[in-house]
């Protein structure tokens, strides 16, 4: 199979775009999609300081690499979850990437260790508060990334969420009619009030397969192994279902999420923005001052419960 843009041999077929690319044209395609996302969703400019949330996986390392190649000022934060050899391996990938690619571009990496900060790893915290590990991990990472972005004086926080992530999350929210979560599914979430960093998802125009292919052809050494805690996670089931639909009808994920964004934009114009909702419903946590809908935020409650001796 030939590349559709040049005479070279193709390495990836993209059925949703009815095309195929060689390594050079694939790299150009992926970087162009990221730049389009940044510009069209008003994510940030070359003057802004960006904090990238990295995990050692393909999405976050690819995002960091592309932002640096496009000339953005992007540092990164890695949160060590304390999940045995998986966390050790992830951390090694992040540190290796930092040394080989980020440092030569003038970027820095900060590492937070949950066990050192809170006295227990994420799986232990989840056990103590009797919540699923993925949900505990999400609460901790969201909190720590937001806090690091605010304290570090960053203009924006970027995550590696891709089209598959957003389509799967949308499917889950729609299946359970969790309408309150739909408002938070935009590629750009504003710093709606004091204590919240602006959050962006520059990979939302790209599928996981396109991102993984970019990582392979650009020799980005990422953690292929999946988190052992994610076994049986609902997100993986939703992604599998969407990929089966995609195989039958290329472009399904793209249409599902993008049509949602178009409808959401109209709805916000008619019913008010997320900023209006946040300012109406949130107030500072009485313990840490981060915005919350209750008196004490879920992070502080979780840490307090974990530090309370068992009865």
């Amino acid at each position, binding site marked *: *199979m030939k590349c559709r843009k040049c005479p070279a041999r*193709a*390495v*990836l*077929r993209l*059925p949703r775009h009815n095309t*195929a690319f060689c*390594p050079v044209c694939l790299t150009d395609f992926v970087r162009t999609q990221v730049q389009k996302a940044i510009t069209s969703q008003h994510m940030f400019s070359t003057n802004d300081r960006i904090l990238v*949330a*990295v*995990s050692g*996986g*393909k*999405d*976050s*390392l690819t*995002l960091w690499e592309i932002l640096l190649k496009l000339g953005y000022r992007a540092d990164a934060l890695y*949160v060590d979850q304390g999940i045995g050899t998986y966390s050790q391996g992830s951390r090694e990938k992040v540190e290796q990437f930092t040394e080989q690619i980020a440092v030569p571009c003038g970027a820095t990496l900060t590492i937070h260790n949950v066990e050192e900060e809170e006295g227990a790893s994420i799986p232990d915290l989840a056990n103590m508060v009797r919540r*699923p*590990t*993925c*949900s505990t*991990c*999400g*609460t901790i*990472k*969201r909190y720590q*990334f937001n806090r690091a972005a605010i304290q570090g004086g960053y203009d924006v926080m970027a*995550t*590696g*969420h891709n089209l*598959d*992530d957003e389509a*799967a999350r949308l499917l889950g929210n729609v299946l359970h009619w969790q309408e309150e979560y739909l408002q938070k599914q935009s590629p750009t979430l504003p710093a709606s009030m004091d204590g919240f960093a602006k959050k962006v998802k520059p990979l939302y125009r790209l*599928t*996981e*397969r396109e*991102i*993984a*292919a970019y990582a*392979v*052809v650009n020799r980005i050494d990422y953690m*292929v*192994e*999946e*988190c052992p*805690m*994610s076994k049986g*996670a*609902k*997100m*993986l089931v939703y*992604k*599998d279902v969407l*990929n*089966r639909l*995609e*195989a039958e009808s290329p472009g399904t994920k793209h249409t599902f999420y993008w049509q949602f964004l178009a409808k959401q934009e109209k709805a916000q114009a008619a019913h008010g923005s997320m900023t209006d909702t946040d300012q109406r419903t949130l107030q500072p946590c009485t313990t840490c001052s981060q915005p919350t809908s209750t008196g004490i935020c879920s992070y502080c409650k979780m840490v307090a419960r974990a530090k309370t001796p068992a009865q």
Partner: protein
Amino acid sequence: MMKSSMKIHLSHPTKEIEIKGPKHVRDLFTELHLIPEAYLVIRGQDLVTEDELLADTDIIEIRPVISGGSERTS
């Protein structure tokens, strides 16, 4: 003399299998009941498309691209 087969590395869970070639990538997906949208096929260090013919001497990795728990950082 033993006949050789292509060596295939799979992840999630990690395992090594051998399959007799020559075989097109798309036929490999069918034989292993895999959805192409969820995987990349890497021969040596290079990505290959579904129409590529794989030989018995090839070392192949079928790499899953799907990741994520209920909440993701990346």
